[in-house]
């Protein structure tokens, strides 16, 4: 991905030199044409077309913000409830992610999810131990974490 961005910048500068106008707008024009060129030659790169990954990162950030708001609503609800009737507990969450930054991102996402907080990551990085405010729907929570967060992170690292 970094290589493709660098190449795109290089094409932008080449465009500036070709047209002999050294303004930001010329660079942007060149960057756009470079983008088209890289898209046309995408099958020569080992990784996929980098704009897709940029979109995946943006959607991951939006997911982060959405989860932050939802988790706050959940916390407000359970704090202001007149009776404390939640059932906290710790459950194990197996993960398929392997690289360190993926696991860190997943842990941060889980911590910002409604009612869950990561306590520890096992030594072989295969299991996350998650403290949940309401354990009753733990299996459901595992499923939804797997479906949304892991997928979004895998989409970035693919």
């Amino acid at each position: 991905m970094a290589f493709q961005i660098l190449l795109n910048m290089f094409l932008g500068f080449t465009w500036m030199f070709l047209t002999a106008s050294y303004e930001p707008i010329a660079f942007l024009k060149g960057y756009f044409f470079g983008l088209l060129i890289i898209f046309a030659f995408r099958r020569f790169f080992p990784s996929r077309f980098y704009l897709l990954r940029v979109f995946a990162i943006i959607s991951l950030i939006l997911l982060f913000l959405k989860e932050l708001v939802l988790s706050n609503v959940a916390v407000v609800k359970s704090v202001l409830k007149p009776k404390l009737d939640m059932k906290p507990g710790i459950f194990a969450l197996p993960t398929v992610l392997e690289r360190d930054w993926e696991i860190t991102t997943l842990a941060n996402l889980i911590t910002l999810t409604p009612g869950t907080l990561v306590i520890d990551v096992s030594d072989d990085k295969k299991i996350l131990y998650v403290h949940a405010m309401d354990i009753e729907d733990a299996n459901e929570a595992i499923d939804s974490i797997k479906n949304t967060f892991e997928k979004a992170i895998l989409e970035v690292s693919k």
Partner: protein
Amino acid sequence: MIEIANILIVVFLLIGAFLSLVAAFGVIRLPDVYTRNHAASKSATLGVMCILIGALLYFYFIDGYFNPRIILGIVFIFLTSPVAGHLIGRAAYNSGVKLWDQSVRDDYKEVSEKKKKLAEKGNR
């Protein structure tokens, strides 16, 4: 335009203050370290973020002054507070703080006991 900005600023500041208040209530009211950690690490994050966004909008719309440091502050809080919550929870568990007695399930117990035994062996 200024009217809309004013309303937005007020809304952000009020939501931020309200969430901080709820976080404080949660720390007082919830039963054990871990559930308190939930309240502190989530509500306080969004509360401070909302207050910072309100300040950013205020200085931008009223004074015409754009302050990028506030944005950096928002990003740093967003990135660091979940990690802080995780570390506090982990440190509490590893130093033997008990879960609330109405807790239902503890998958982590065996693993942490095993770890403790290993650490004791290492010390000898």
